[in-house]
């Protein structure tokens, strides 16, 4: 090999190394770039996709997905995993429609009971996986199963009631005819989660616990307590997302939002939070939620047959996940 080609090879290698380094260190930004590419592709394929209705819908669906994704982010950063967010969402969505029955004025009891459900489920998930040491994936699935059984026992599987018009309007009403009201919820929840993760003592402890629990323990952090609290946060956020989801759907049936357990987990991982724990950001998870919504939007725009659409969706998600989630856990 000549000196020139050796240099070219080295130069290409350096370029790919730099790209790889960029991808691995700017995961949230990468998710934004992927979202932009997906949106651009949608517009190129179908220029009519660039319209105010689409923007409003994308914002709405992204905000709804970003709420359970917030809980997933906290749990994953702490080194755990929560497959129960969908079941909690479904439970509180059913509670919302059954309690409200299309009438205004029941928001406070619904909110308080939902939060209580989120706290209890989150605590049980955390306690079982952290204190008893059972695998988080198994425990959260088993607890989700119990929550689902309770939905059927309480409702007999029959859908009943609707969300109140006032609650529905706080999600669907469009500010300026474009931005859905649900953005107001995002203005409360997003900064709150940013604060918890980046500014609070709990957030700093959570990163350390997820990164190196042994080191965290040696510095005096109550590792188990921090992890259990992350599960409780996840439960509460999922419970709140269920109320928002009920307002969006108007009606709710058993297991209606079970799919959000996987969607929110994938969104979080696409956003750069790793299974290894100790790294990731909520900004990434929001961007990951946007990627999920835009990908589904793109595939519908292509007007493909359902099986092909599902295969494409899975293939693209696997490719995206291959880009991330390859961080190695710190040796303890």
């Amino acid at each position, binding site marked *: 090999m000549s000196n020139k080609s050796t240099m070219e090879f080295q130069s290409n290698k350096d370029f790919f190394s730099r790209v790889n380094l960029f991808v691995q260190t700017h995961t949230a930004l990468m998710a934004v770039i992927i979202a932009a590419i997906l949106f651009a592709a949608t517009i190129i394929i*179908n220029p*009519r*996709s*660039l*319209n105010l*209705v*689409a923007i*409003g*819908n*994308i914002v*709405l*669906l992204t905000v709804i997905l970003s709420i359970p994704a917030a809980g997933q982010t906290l749990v994953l950063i702490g080194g755990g995993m929560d497959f129960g967010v969908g079941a909690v969402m479904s439970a509180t969505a059913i509670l919302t*429609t059954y309690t409200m029955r299309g009438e205004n004025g029941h928001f406070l009891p619904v909110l308080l009971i939902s939060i209580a459900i989120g706290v209890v489920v989150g605590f049980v998930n955390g306690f*079982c996986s952290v*204190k*008893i040491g*059972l695998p988080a994936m198994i*425990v959260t699935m*088993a607890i989700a*199963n*119990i929550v*689902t*059984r309770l939905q*059927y*026992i309480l409702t*007999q*599987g*029959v*859908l*009943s*009631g*609707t969300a109140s018009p006032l609650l*529905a309007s706080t*999600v*669907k*009403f*469009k500010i300026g*005819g474009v931005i*859905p009201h649900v953005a107001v919820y995002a203005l409360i929840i997003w900064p709150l989660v940013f604060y918890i993760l980046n500014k609070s003592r709990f957030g700093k402890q959570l990163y350390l616990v997820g990164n190196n629990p042994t080191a965290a323990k040696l510095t005096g952090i109550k590792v188990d307590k921090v992890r259990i609290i992350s599960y409780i946060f996840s439960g509460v956020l999922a419970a709140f997302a269920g109320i928002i989801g009920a307002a*969006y*759907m*108007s*009606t709710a*049936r*058993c*297991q*209606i*939002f*079970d*799919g959000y357990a996987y969607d929110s987990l994938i969104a979080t991982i696409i956003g750069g939070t790793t299974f290894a724990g100790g790294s990731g950001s909520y900004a990434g998870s929001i961007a990951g939620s946007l990627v999920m919504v835009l990908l*589904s*939007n793109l595939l*519908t*725009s292509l*007007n493909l*047959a*359902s*099986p092909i659409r599902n295969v494409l969706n899975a293939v693209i998600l696997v490719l995206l996940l291959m880009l991330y989630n390859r961080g190695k856990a710190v040796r303890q």
Partner: protein
Amino acid sequence: MKKLLVVMLAACMVFALAACGGAAEGGDTPAPAGSGSGSGSASAPAAGQTLKMASHNAVVEGNPYRVRYELDMQEAAADAVNYGYNVSYNSFVANSDASTEQQQLQNSINEGFDIIVNNPVATTGLDPIIESAQNAGIVYINADCAYMSTDVDILNVVTDQEYLGYKTGQYAGEVLGNGAKVVMIAAWEGNQANTDRQRGFEKAIAEAGMEVVATGNHDWDTTKSQQIMAEILNSGVQFDGVLVSQCAENALEAFDAAGVAYPGFIGFGDTGAFMQKMLEVNKDGLVTPYIVLSNPPGVGATALNFALNEIAGKKLKDGVFAPGYEDTHQIWIKSKVCYTDKDVAAGTQVEGMSIEDYANSFEAGDSITFWLNFQEVQDTYFN
């Protein structure tokens, strides 16, 4: 303490898994609140023949239609007492897994059930099991989703799905006119009921000269119906009406969420939510024409009464099979309830009451249902 907790959690998980698979182990599906009937009354002592019936279902959870299907089966089992049969009801759910279905069917054969009513996972693949059941003297009836194998001699009791699609498309064509652009949201690709229904839709679309400008599948999932409709709205495609294979109320919610005007037609729907929503939408004058059609979950209960008539030694009348489907012995139960916005305006009555009262008599998620009792099945289909 830790060991105790582990034991308690293990017990808890076992409970959860047992609850999950409970139906698959022959547990009774809970009766609807206030339904006044159920397996309890079905198994009450009665003077007459005692029969064990197994209801096998591909899926129940998360599917309000299948939940109602099982509840109607329980009611029909209880009602059989009036015709001299003491029928016990047992439910088995395969959770869409063909091997689980086969295993459960084999268990039902081994346990000596008298009747098996199966709503199958797939349209083929059960021939040996069916033959085994029949050799054991079990009356095997396939219900709801047709079983398409021609190598076994069983009855297929299904709803006339083609009619549902055709009737909807036909009314859409009447309302929207020739050349109208429509969205077509189908149900579950590969499901026989969906295939039959789509054939009806396509026939009517062609006859009315309509153009399908966007498509999607909601897989009978309410969340997906709303999502697909929202994404079609996002795509900016221009259309006049929406043809949707049930879950219409959720497709309409997508218009609310997007803040855009309702379409020039939507249908069909069959739930309390859809009927009530459309009355509300059109209360001050016609905004969106629509059609309500029943795709009765009670088809399983009707199938049970076919089984009881066979046990009574009755023989089917000639010409009861659907034209073109004689080889698979398909009996298509016609939709009983069908009304449109025009019927509402004309003050037409449904089931002996005004459409408003009829619509408001349903819970939001409950589907229109009916089933033919033992005598009705005998009078209509047997000699």
